[in-house]
């Protein structure tokens, strides 16, 4: 794989792998069990400079780009995809501020986001069919002091743990998707509260909850980009989410296939290790191949981002590939481990629950097809 990575990217990936082995392997099962936000681990992520990987050096970031980000995400996910989820959702907020923020906004937020003093969250979804263009459950109206936000955002990751959120709101319900704006909202803003934590199938430890805005008043300076840039911000930021979640998927799948391969060498049935059976070898080979192809696709999209090239179509292709094949990485590796593999004392059930969260969410199910087809037909 190294031909696809620079020496720096490879070193960053290795350091993430070593970090994950030392700090995440010992806590991953417990984190899955308790679902408690791992504040101490997040501090350590900051100490490793993982929270500001692609943030420009003038704001205290590592300025190592998006390939480095997905390398770190994949390597953390091989041990704990939940911890990687915290990093990914933090990164979405940092990305939006770096990409669309003005000088003052970048100066105000990026150094703390990169250093880890501030954790970010990205609040785009609503209890409706289509992110950003749904029922417009959060309305922003002009106010003497700037803007007033009223309503609810749904399924916000890092909810309650984040110090600052990038929030999508509708400035004109009649205009729908065109009137979306993004705002930078501190968690401490008066009137902002966090709903009860949702019970998720997996990725436990990365909190998910509604954000409830009860006339939250924010200054004009909280508007990110222009008043109608919300849809673009949503689309691009969710494309980064697709790429980063693909890296989570590849990491989970890699961990699973390695575990299942090792298991198959020790599990004896019919007088021989099941690893010698071609049926088992096929399950492992298909999983490894899908993992590899996902990794190529997601690195390609991340490289396009590093090069400042359009990446939405490539991100959608990775998302589509994994919507079809991502969950199968665990469906087939659990199959290798059979009845043992289905028991929660083994690690793969956690990975099975996690991978559903990294492959199946975060966009309408037909989003990738629409994006790819629109580009082809343009």
């Amino acid at each position, binding site marked *: 794989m190294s031909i696809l990575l620079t020496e720096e990217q490879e070193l960053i990936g290795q350091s993430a792998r070593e970090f994950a082995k030392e700090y995440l392997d010992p806590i991953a099962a417990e984190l899955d069990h308790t679902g408690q936000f791992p504040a101490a681990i997040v501090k350590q992520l900051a100490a490793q400079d993982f929270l500001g990987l692609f943030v420009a050096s003038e704001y205290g970031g590592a300025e190592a780009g998006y390939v480095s980000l997905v390398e770190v995400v994949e390597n953390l996910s091989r041990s704990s995809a939940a911890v990687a989820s915290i990093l990914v959702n933090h990164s979405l907020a940092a990305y939006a501020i770096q990409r669309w923020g003005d000088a003052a906004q970048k100066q105000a937020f990026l150094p703390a986001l990169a250093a880890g003093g501030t954790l970010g969250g990205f609040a785009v979804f609503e209890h409706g069919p289509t992110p950003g263009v749904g029922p417009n459950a959060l309305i922003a109206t002009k106010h003497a002091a700037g803007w007033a936000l009223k309503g609810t955002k749904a399924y916000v990751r890092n909810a309650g743990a984040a110090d600052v959120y990038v929030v999508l709101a509708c400035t004109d319900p009649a205009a729908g998707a065109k009137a979306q704006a993004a705002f930078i909202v501190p968690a401490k803003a008066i009137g902002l509260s966090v709903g009860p934590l949702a019970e*998720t*199938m997996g990725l436990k430890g990365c909190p998910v909850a509604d954000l409830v805005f009860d006339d939250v008043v924010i200054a004009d300076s909280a508007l990110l980009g222009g008043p109608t840039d919300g849809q673009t911000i949503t689309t691009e930021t969710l494309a980064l989410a697709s790429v980063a979640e693909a890296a989570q998927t590849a990491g989970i799948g890699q961990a699973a296939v390695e575990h299942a391969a090792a298991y198959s060498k020790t599990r004896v*049935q019919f007088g021989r290790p099941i690893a010698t059976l071609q049926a088992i070898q096929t399950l492992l080979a298909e999983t490894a191949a899908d993992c590899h192809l996902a990794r190529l696709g997601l690195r390609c999209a991340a490289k396009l981002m590093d090069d400042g090239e359009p990446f939405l179509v490539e991100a959608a292709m990775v998302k589509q590939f994994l919507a079809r094949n991502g969950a199968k990485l665990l469906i087939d590796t659990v199959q290798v481990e*059979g009845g043992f*593999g289905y028991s929660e004392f083994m690690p793969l059930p956690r990975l099975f*629950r996690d991978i*559903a969260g990294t492959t199946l969410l975060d966009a*309408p*199910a037909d989003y990738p097809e629409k994006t790819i087809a629109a580009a082809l037909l343009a």
Partner: protein
Amino acid sequence: MSILTAAQKQIQADNVAFVAKEIIPFAAQYDKTGEFHPYLLDAARESKIFAMAIPKEYGGLDYDALTQAVVLEAWGYGCAGMATTLAASVLSMDSVMVAGTDAQKKAFYGPMVRGEIGSFGLTEPSAGSDAGNGKSTAVKVGDEYILNGSKCWITNGGYSSVFVIYALTDPAAGMKGISAFIVEKGTPGFTIGTVDHKLGIRSSNTVELLFKDVHIPAANLLGKEGEGMKIAMKTLDMARPAIASLSLGLSQRALDECVKHLQQQYPEKAQPGQTLQFKLADMKIEIEAARQLLYHAMNLRDAGLPYSAESAMTKTFSSDMAMKITTQAVQLMGTFGYTTGIAKLMRDAKIMQIYEGTNQIQRLVISRAVLAPARPAVAVQKGGI
């Protein structure tokens, strides 16, 4: 639509109603705690549904195979975990149906007719797919057998009154040295070991059974010594379609939940786009195909015709389908699916590809039959081998 008799349709409707009242409202709670649901046995007692496979002369409902499949589909729709409780209990009595004497049937079926449940004990840590590789032994001493060893992943084990246990009476003979026994709960030396916590079907009870010098009457031997593997294989032929039924119920539930969700999400006249519409159409096509394969297999069995290959095929097809459709359901519903009971369907579906013989073992059996020259198969007759 399918061709069911008026009586079968009535039984189906009764079970759909039972599931709506006694299973669906409680499924999430028991999935969460991972506890067994003893209340269910009380709720089902009056209907005698746990005795659905037992012949009339023994006090059971005497449902034919197709009717049993329809019942299990309805239960699988409500909760695959609770449906597993029912399916596993039927599985245990299938062994007695295959090889039991009149006296053995009376002894085994009695508790079931009273609303109690049973367990089938074949699997051991060393004997999963390699089912004949168990280490448990039964040594004949006078008019008793003395049973030693253990069984694992035994469904209902902690709550069953009666068990069919497979053990070696002649270890030197390997698979041909396996025999089947009826063992009653509470027999001295017979204890329950660890309870297994699983990815899905969490409301079904899965335990280890431990046997230490357990004395069982020689009269509890099913069939003859050495016939255990033959009995087990015939039992599994009968039981595998139950997994197809559960998988079918799970898949239908997933589709229904998708439709319900999409209808809530889209304004009155709007529809999801063709990409999603066609996914729903594909789900529907597969579910109907699976249902017909299952019903066909059951018709063969009810007609006394060979159905072993169809039994393996319906189990494999339906369970792979259930895994695929439940995964797609989570995807269609996105984070809503991930944070609600939809995710349970996906976790539950995974075991369908594993238990009652993994789909790899089914494919082994099917591909052998495909590659082999045609040879006559033996029909399973009720009440004997």
